[in-house]
């Protein structure tokens, strides 16, 4: 319930105003979602992956704040033309740096964006029935955080519904 100033930097503002690679991709090889509208942010990534396991194209849709839109947008740019293995190495910290930094309360936006990306990569290999060596079975930090956020949101929504029925 507290508020803090949100001095977004010019890069975040620019990406908010002119996001890159926006929209659903009809011929995507794989797509994945992270977040929950109840938390106020939700990101979907669409990836077109070629036979060499290189991301040819990436796009996103995002329900969320300016930081959410900016981090999603930058992730699509960072992963274009990279191998899945290299894309997997991207951390939320790198994403935050790439948008020129974020107010600390908005770090979770970068985490969520990377969480959605890693889920998409994991899903791709699951669909394929393959498991490269570099892909650890244990969830990455970002995937875990995304999951935690979603579960909290579900719990809160459930509690609200119960209260609504009383």
């Amino acid at each position, binding site marked *: *319930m*507290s*508020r*803090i*100033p*949100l*001095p*977004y*930097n*010019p890069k975040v*503002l620019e990406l*908010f*105003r002119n*996001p890159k690679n*926006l*929209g*659903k991709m009809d011929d995507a090889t794989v797509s994945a*979602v992270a977040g929950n*509208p*109840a*938390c*106020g*942010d*939700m*990101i*979907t990534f669409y990836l077109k992956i070629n036979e060499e396991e290189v991301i040819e194209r990436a796009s996103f*849709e*995002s*329900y*969320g*704040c*300016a930081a*959410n*839109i900016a981090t999603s947008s930058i992730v699509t740019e960072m992963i274009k033309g990279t191998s899945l293995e290299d894309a997997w190495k991207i951390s939320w910290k790198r994403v935050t740096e790439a948008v020129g930094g974020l107010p600390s*309360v*908005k770090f*979770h936006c970068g985490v969520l964006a990377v969480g959605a990306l890693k889920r998409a990569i994991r899903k791709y290999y699951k669909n394929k029935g393959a498991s490269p060596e570099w892909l650890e079975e244990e969830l990455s930090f970002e995937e875990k955080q995304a999951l935690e*956020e979603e579960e*909290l*949101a579900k719990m*809160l*929504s459930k509690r*609200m519904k119960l209260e*609504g029925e009383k």
Partner: protein
Amino acid sequence: MVENVKELLRAHEGLKREVYLDIENSSWVPEEVVKAMLPFYGERAYGNPTLTHKLGWEAFETIMEETKKVANFLGCKNVEEINYTPGETEANNLALIGTAFSKKSLGKKIVISEIEPISVLHVTELLQKYGFTTTKISVDREGLINLEELEKIVDKETILVSLSAVNNEIGTIQPIKEACKIVKEKNSESIFHTDASDAYGKIPFKVQDFCVDLATISSYKILGPRGIGVLYVKEGVGVERILEGQIGTQKLWPGVENTPLIVGFTKASELAFQDFRGNVNHMRKLRDKLIGGIFERVPDVKLNGPKGEKRAPDNVNISFLRCEGEALTIELSLSGVYVSSGSACTRRLLQPSHVLVAIGRRFEEAHGSILMKTTRYHQEEDIEYVLDVLPKAVERLRGITGTTRVD
């Protein structure tokens, strides 16, 4: 960080028109109010009103004369009932903590509603740490307090009931007179406080008609200067000081009286009340134009709070589905429209406005809410400008949301 903000401000250069509707969180001060205040900074009455020299006596005279006017607007018996504080937050702190201090031997129970302002909510949380309990009465889908529940809850242990006269977020006009009557019938020792910051200057509100013991008024919500508010304390009602220091003309708030701010607040009150009906009709007309226009031009919207006469004349609060509120405030700002949102997008788990949650809005509906308030200074053209800009802003952000399922 401030460099970032300078860049953000540069992005606003060359705006054709600017419309400020965020009266909930702060306001500009009209020129006539500033003009009334100016002489009291450097020309006259800048002394301490308790001191024995010309500037002190001038200050005393000014404060007494101004306070008479305020007492009249509020329908008080005498000027001693008016206590100036630095704002609504401080007045609510004084009302709740000061009553808890003075009544602690009679009971520990405090009753509020689910939709009280943050200052009231947080003060009751603080008081819980010192042995007081808080019971919240529920509200219906339009934010109207449940009087039957109030009647059941108030008992001999209840020392204080605090219910705002008009909800600050969704504009619900509460049956304060009835609520106060119920409280007094159940326990005549109970103190009844109302935060009337969104009632003063917006709906007919006289403390005597409403039979309340304590009432909070904010200056900036009627376009007076920030840094001043009032706690009305009915004659004979015991509220203890919560701050100690040099006591001057007022017993409940120590420190040097701020004469220019008192003058500014009084001037803003005069402007609000000199044509009260005309002002209210103007605000209401613009409110309805704004609400009507949004419903006409933007699909998938929900009005938060009641319609028509049950709603404060200045309040517009609308949820835009599939559109996140913080992003919308930024998008609108870049077009010169300044509003706030019930989305509290500053946490990992973003908890939206407690008021919207209490009236049964889902989180995703609350996250997409926008709060705007009209004033007598706004023009039809301002509203038309908002109605031109807003649908485009919502459409662009919904485009980014795309096919993401948010319902």
